[in-house]
């Protein structure tokens, strides 16, 4: 069942250009040249109930603007969006009752008082009945193992503890859809794990999540589907597992050899990082040189002492995608499925 339906959403805004020189700064007092910025251009996608979608893109790509339109904060310049059957920016008050949002860099808690007071305030703002509030608070505090920390002033909490409380704040009214913006930024590995487990738990209970992050571990561990936006346009929308195929069948190889690797000369092999004369990280394109032939060749030329083969890191794939900008890619290039079929499945819109 479709929860989010976005159709040709566009957002442009005017901003003034400012120079750096003293003269330009002084001129700004008199005249400010304006420039139109197309933050989001004709994006179309849909999200089903219960999905966990990562919304990715480099800084300034347009993902925050898109999420602000989907949360009802900003009005689009053109296009339509229906979320939970409502238009976010037109039916804001009714709509936000059903959504939650967690921002890694914007706190909804009150700095000087314990989170429990902020929860109580949110209960009143959302009009949550006492019994529901108690039940959800118990459930959330157990899942996140926060217990007594809710009664300590927010300023005395660690970042991890605070983020757990941000999640409680966002979930107390029982939202069906939650927007997460960098939810694990700055957290240690234990806190990250705890937050990720919580998100997975909530997702199993039917909550839909839209995740924006630059932490690609979050993406790998949480998201089933990835939407990549760059220069305001969607450049990839498909399952995370298909991302690998998009750039061909490549592997990352870390290798230690008997003789210096520079003697190695093979087509389809790129040295990514030369650690020492006999140790390096390589990227191999198995469409040009199959793994078996690569191993035989390296063993013959340099003598393999040790070797680890892993899929291409997601960072590399993202860098490729971000670099491609708005270049059109077809469904077939990513999945092997004919473009028309994939589009019908809602798999790709690049």
């Amino acid at each position, binding site marked *: 069942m479709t929860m989010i339906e976005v159709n040709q959403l566009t957002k442009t805004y005017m901003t003034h250009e400012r120079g750096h020189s003293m003269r330009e700064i002084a001129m700004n007092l008199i005249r400010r040249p304006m420039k139109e910025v197309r933050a989001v251009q004709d994006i179309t996608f849909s999200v089903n109930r219960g999905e966990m979608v990562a919304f990715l893109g480099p800084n300034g790509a347009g993902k925050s603007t898109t999420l602000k339109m989907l949360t009802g904060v900003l009005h689009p310049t053109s296009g339509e969006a229906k979320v939970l059957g409502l238009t976010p920016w037109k039916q804001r008050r009714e709509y936000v*009752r059903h959504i939650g949002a967690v921002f890694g860099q914007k706190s909804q808690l009150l700095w000087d008082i314990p989170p429990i007071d902020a929860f109580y305030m949110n209960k009143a703002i959302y009009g949550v009945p006492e019994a529901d509030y108690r039940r959800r608070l118990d459930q959330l505090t157990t899942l996140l193992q926060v217990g007594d920390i809710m009664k300590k002033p927010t300023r005395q909490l660690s970042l991890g503890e605070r983020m757990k409380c941000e999640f409680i704040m966002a979930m107390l009214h029982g939202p069906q859809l939650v927007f997460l913006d960098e939810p694990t930024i700055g957290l240690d590995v234990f806190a990250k794990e705890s937050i990720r487990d919580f998100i997975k738990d909530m997702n199993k209970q039917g909550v839909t999540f839209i995740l924006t992050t630059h932490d690609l571990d979050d993406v790998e561990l949480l998201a089933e589907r990835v939407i990549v936006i760059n220069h305001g346009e969607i450049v990839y929308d498909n399952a995370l597992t298909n991302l690998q195929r998009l750039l061909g069948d490549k592997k990352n190889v870390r290798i230690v050899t008997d003789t210096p690797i520079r003697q190695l000369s093979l087509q389809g092999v790129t040295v990514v990082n030369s650690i020492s004369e006999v140790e390096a990280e390589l990227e191999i394109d198995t469409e040009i040189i199959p793994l078996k032939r690569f191993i035989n060749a390296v063993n013959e030329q340099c003598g393999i002492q040790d070797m680890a083969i892993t899929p291409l890191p997601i960072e590399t794939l993202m860098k490729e995608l971000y670099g491609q900008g708005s270049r059109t890619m077809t469904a077939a290039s990513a999945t092997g499925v004919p473009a028309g079929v994939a589009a019908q499945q809602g798999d790709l819109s690049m």
Partner: protein
Amino acid sequence: MIAVIRSAATCFWAVMRTKMAEQMAYRSHFVLSVILLIAGDLVVPLITLLVYRSGATFAGWTLYEALLVQAIFGLAKGIAFPLFFGMVNTTLGLVREGTFDLLLLKPRSVLWMTMLRGLDLDDFGRLISGGVLFGYALSGVSAPSITGWLQFAVLFAASLAVLCTFALLLSGLLFQWVGSSRVFDIFDSVTSFGMYPGTIYSKAVQQLLTYVIPVGLIANMPAVALLGRGGWETLGAAGASVVFLALGLWFWHAMLGRYTSAGG
């Protein structure tokens, strides 16, 4: 309707409770703020006192009558500042940081959320200085009649509406003039005309201060009612405050439409 009012009241008290808890986290700051506000608000009445002691007067006004105007000004600010003027600081800070988004994510009127977020308990201190001065000024004038008190009640409500409108105008401006903390200076400059008996100004200025920028309604007209110098026709001036408030509400919402958030 009753359910809406009950829900709004519950919301208001819940926020007040957290605001109180916030203030109590820094008790010394709270106490110091209240004392400084009281002291600051007594400066103009002290100057008035010095003026009268030196033999000069506001024509047609005794010292107590002049102080009554300033006391009512203080009382009106004592209610309007904690309730409405926090909005200005809220808009100033949140729009600049882009965190005004968080208020838009709440299922309440944005204006109501902005007002709640800005509730400022320190400012209730102004009620103390205004109240003390009000009592002192009343002790020096003849006791107001029942009619006088009734007229005063209506005009004092109009006074609060005027101050609320100023808060709306200043807060609204900050959606466009992001980060301009100088908007408070605009308020101080304009409303300072309302701290003195209206008759010290020319007829034209009096009309301007009653019907166009109704700062005369903040203190002068309620004081005139208490002193028994105004007829029921002065209540017509309260109509100006309703129009002014409607204009303020329209302006604030129009400016909210210009909110562009900040980079993410």
